[in-house]
């Protein structure tokens, strides 16, 4: 069983939800990045999304845009991200998903991307601007079906028929975009998200992780009962931005991971199951 499937089945047995964390490689510096991400993994992150910065991140809000800009200034590239993945793989066993836009991957070379990602110990890739219609040229190099996942996105605007199609080609988990907007934007509507999860469940048996716009443990707590995992990105990046060179940044991030993980735990009382 691959690391992603294994992780979700372990969590299921424990009755827990996955905390998926996004961090940009090389933010605030390449050297700090390894230390910070390692601390987050050790603090209880279940799945890591390793962000490879792109110069033109059209699906990201200001927080992740600035993170990408800092990382690029550091000279972060996909090659560096592969090295980082290898280094992290020596320190942690959690699934690592490479997260980027298509152009850096396309420029790297699609075949080498697959081989190098596997060799580095990555478990999959999520490409924000690669809809399933255009993804064949990427996955045609993937020899085995099960060792590397293309994490597919479903949006609130995705019609049911299209959802079905996306789900049919997905593996690992499905990433449900919680709202129509860029990453880190506010105005989460838990009722809407719940409805989208219900729709998506009717077309897939894969785990569903929800992300974009979940900024506080309170948001996470509200959505956790309905999803299999929650993705946090901008909230971590905001912490990095606010404490760039602070000596306790690693501790702060670790504490934040623990807070989110705590929020994902089911409450002992039954009343959380009631309609809100």
């Amino acid at each position, binding site marked *: 069983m691959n690391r992603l499937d294994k992780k979700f089945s372990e969590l299921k047995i424990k009755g827990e939800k996955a905390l998926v964390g996004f961090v940009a490689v090389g933010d605030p510096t390449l050297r700090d990045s390894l230390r910070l991400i390692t601390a987050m993994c050790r603090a209880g992150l279940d799945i890591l999304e390793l962000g490879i910065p*792109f*110069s*033109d*991140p*059209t*699906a*990201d*809000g200001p927080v992740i*845009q600035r993170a990408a800009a800092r990382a*690029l200034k550091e000279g972060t*590239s*996909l*090659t560096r991200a592969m090295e980082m993945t290898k280094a992290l793989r020596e320190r942690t066993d959690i699934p690592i998903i490479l997260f980027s*836009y*298509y*152009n*850096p*991957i*396309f*420029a*790297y070379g699609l075949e080498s991307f697959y081989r190098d990602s596997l060799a580095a110990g990555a478990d999959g890739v999520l490409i*924000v*601007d*690669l*809809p399933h*219609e*255009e993804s064949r040229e990427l996955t045609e190099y993937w020899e085995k079906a099960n060792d590397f996942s293309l994490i597919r*996105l*479903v*949006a*609130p*605007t*995705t*019609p049911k028929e*299209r959802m079905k199609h*996306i789900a049919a080609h997905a593996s690992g988990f499905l990433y449900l*975009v919680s709202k*129509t*907007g*860029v990453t880190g*934007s506010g105005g989460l509507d838990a009722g809407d998200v719940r409805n989208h999860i219900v729709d998506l469940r009717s077309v897939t048996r894969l785990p569903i992780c929800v992300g974009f716009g979940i900024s506080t443990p309170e948001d996470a707590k509200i959505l956790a009962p309905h999803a299999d995992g929650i993705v946090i990105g901008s909230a971590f990046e905001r912490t990095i931005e606010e404490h760039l060179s602070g000596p306790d940044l690693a501790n702060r991030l670790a504490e934040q991971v623990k807070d989110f993980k705590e929020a994902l735990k089911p409450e002992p009382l039954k009343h959380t199951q009631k309609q809100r």
Partner: protein
Amino acid sequence: MQKQQKNEKRWLMEPMPDKAGHFGPHGGRYVAETLMAALITLEEAYLKISREPAFRKELDLLLADYAGRPTPLYHARRLSEHLGGARIYLKREDLVHTGAHKINNTLGQGLLARWMGKKKIIAETGAGQHGVATATVAALFGMECRVFMGVEDIRRQAPNVHRMKLLGAEVVPVDSGTGTLKDAMNEAMRYWVGAVTDTHYVIGSVAGPHPYPLMVRDFQTVIGEEVRGQILESLGRLPDMLVACVGGGSNAMGLFYPFLDTPVELVGVEAAGTGIASGKHAATLCEGSLGVLHGSKSYVLQDRNGQIMEAHSISAGLDYPGVGPEHSFLKDSGRARYVSIDDDEAMEAFHALCRLEGIIPALESSHAVAFCLKEAPALPRDTVIVVNLSGRGDKDLGIVSDYEAGKGGAHR
């Protein structure tokens, strides 16, 4: 009249792009999933509505009565004589309402948005011509309009910012990146991701995800169709060469398209900025490589890690590191030739046209004129070149006087 109908039929049967928006390896749709449903709906609506006779009729009427089409095809005799070679004709898109070809597309998309029931439109703009043309159409149709514009462009194209505001549009300054067209487009796409349910995004070039390259080309094809009719009427034959500037490439595509199946030579002129060797240019087709930017696969200016590079041109409308996918296809297939003209050459052409013909061209269009200055003298006198004079230069007077004052290289 019969000819026109024949052209239209050919236009409808054209197999490029394919159903998913591909021009060979170029084009397609590379966007966030949130936008996919909207793009598919837009494509379906466009294909259906644009074929409705009532829509065509309404658009044709607006193009004629409101925008002032057809625009003249003018034989630039003094310029031709001065160069002593080929005969040069200017397609006077500078004379259309709002002063550039951009209005052809914004009327089309604005009308489409109205037929689709959208009441809000957004746009990105570089030189401000597309922003003005979008703001104009928004005023005409009573729509709410937001235009995203880089802070650098707001500074260097101030008259157009004023015009957009007068027309009731909100101009949203974009200060990320270099504050130019690429950044404006990033921000417009981000905004659209959040507003996609009730807002139509009026992309101004033959770039972006499918169906934009197809749709914008179709709306701009009126330029080439008119040229074809006009030159046949005045000379009884097709021209030998068509020349147009290429940023994203909409005026060039609109001119070239009706001639693709003819032997007419097609030349796209990119901006070489302060020179290709300086690295500060916008010659995407000449110097770029295959990549994905702003929703489609095409040539882009990028580093070896796939990061998009900054473009540079004295002309804000050409200052873009990407290009429409159909141009990339035309380059690969050899059907069109792409060359580059630097800031100084464009400025020289700007002055030549002012003095010899009494026409103040946009700096974008000056690049196309500059190509003629270079090549026409060596061509036989019976060679006929049509240059798309895509816009007028009023908006550029500030840049020109800065340049004259010796600050040509310091305008960034």
